[in-house]
């Protein structure tokens, strides 16, 4: 085993909470549809000039309250996000590097991915830590989609929510990163994309179809590549695109413990969804399969192993 794992996760949500179900009728959706199909009772919005930077900063500060790590030991900072990318020169990771006074030897990069981004970033961070000898890495997700939403578009406005996360990786982390499976179907890229006017458009049917056809196989491959079988997996955590996508995938993952819809009161926070769930609910079993999917259209699955006490340095 490579001996790299998650030590702690910091999180942040947008400063304004919206009652989502009551908003449904004003967007042409019955309250029952929002509750039963979309599933999000609340979504969050982060206002201000630079919501991605603000949310990322709060997530890192939240992480620092939970884990007393030395900032100078961070050798890699990866930021995942796209919503503010057009105005993001320099990259967000560099801005955060300066704001938190990280070491000049700390490598920084942004990754342009959506809902599969956190898992992709874990895989990349693990590989870079292994090959470059890095001590600690920070994976930050901050993608406030509210900056690209059309407030009158029911297909996106009732789903997406602003949030951020900061995941600390180290050789002592007790949630070990096992094997992964990642992929892309670029032929469907336009199904979830910002158009020429700068507004996010989503073909929800196509995204759902993509997830159903690709995520179950990806989970199988990541589990098998980890040297495990479905019966070894105690929990499956899925990106919470909507209640419908989680429930439809659950119906097709019959060899695994049934995945749950866990983000009703948070919304779809894009690449922050999975770290928010893990931070809030914890990992309840030894092996957890975690799968994100969305923009690209792309998917990324990783198996996480929760070590028993005292085994973190193996």
């Amino acid at each position, binding site marked *: 085993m490579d001996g790299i794992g998650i030590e702690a996760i910091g999180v942040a949500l947008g400063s304004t909470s919206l009652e989502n179900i009551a908003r449904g009728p004003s967007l042409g959706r019955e309250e029952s*549809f929002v509750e039963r*199909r979309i599933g999000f009772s609340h979504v969050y919005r982060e206002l201000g000039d630079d919501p991605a930077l603000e949310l990322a900063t709060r997530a890192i500060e939240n992480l620092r309250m939970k884990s007393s790590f030395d900032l100078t030991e961070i050798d890699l900072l990866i930021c995942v996000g796209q919503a503010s990318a057009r105005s993001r020169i320099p990259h967000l990771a560099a801005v955060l590097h300066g704001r938190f006074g990280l070491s000049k030897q700390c490598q920084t990069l942004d990754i342009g991915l959506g809902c599969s981004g956190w898992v992709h970033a874990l895989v990349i961070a693990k590989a870079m830590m292994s090959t470059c000898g890095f001590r600690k890495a920070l994976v930050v997700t901050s993608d406030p989609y509210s900056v690209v939403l059309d407030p009158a578009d029911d297909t996106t406005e009732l789903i997406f929510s602003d949030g951020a996360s900061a995941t600390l990786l180290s050789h002592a982390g007790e949630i070990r990163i096992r094997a992964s499976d990642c992929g892309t179907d670029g032929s469907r890229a336009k199904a979830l994309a910002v158009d020429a006017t700068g507004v996010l458009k989503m*073909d*929800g*049917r*196509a995204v*759902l*179809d993509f997830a159903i056809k690709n995520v179950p196989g990806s989970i199988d491959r990541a589990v098998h590549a980890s040297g495990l079988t479905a019966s070894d997996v105690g929990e499956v955590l899925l990106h919470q695109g909507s209640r*419908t996508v989680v429930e*439809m995938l659950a119906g097709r993952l019959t060899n695994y413990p049934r995945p749950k819809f866990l983000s009703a009161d948070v919304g779809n926070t894009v690449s922050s969804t999975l770290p928010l769930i893990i931070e809030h609910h914890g990992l309840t079993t030894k092996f957890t399969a975690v799968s994100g999917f969305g923009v690209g259209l792309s998917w990324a699955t990783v198996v996480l192993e929760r070590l028993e006490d005292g085994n973190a340095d193996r």
Partner: protein
Amino acid sequence: MQIDSELVRTLLEEIVSSDVLAGLVDDESFRDQGVDSLDVVTLLLALEERFGLVVPDADVPLCSSVAAIVAYAQGRDN
């Protein structure tokens, strides 16, 4: 197997409520009759997995009613 109105309705039995199904008119749009977009996703997946009818993303708007799906399937056969 030929995809006809009866077959589409049989698949819809597993997807929508009996009330919605009872009032369903073949040539009126799903959306106007309480069959939402996510029901249509489920229906099209069932048609693909059980009967091999693959509907590309660009053709989905052509499948907006029972009659439209039957016509689309017949067009693909020809």
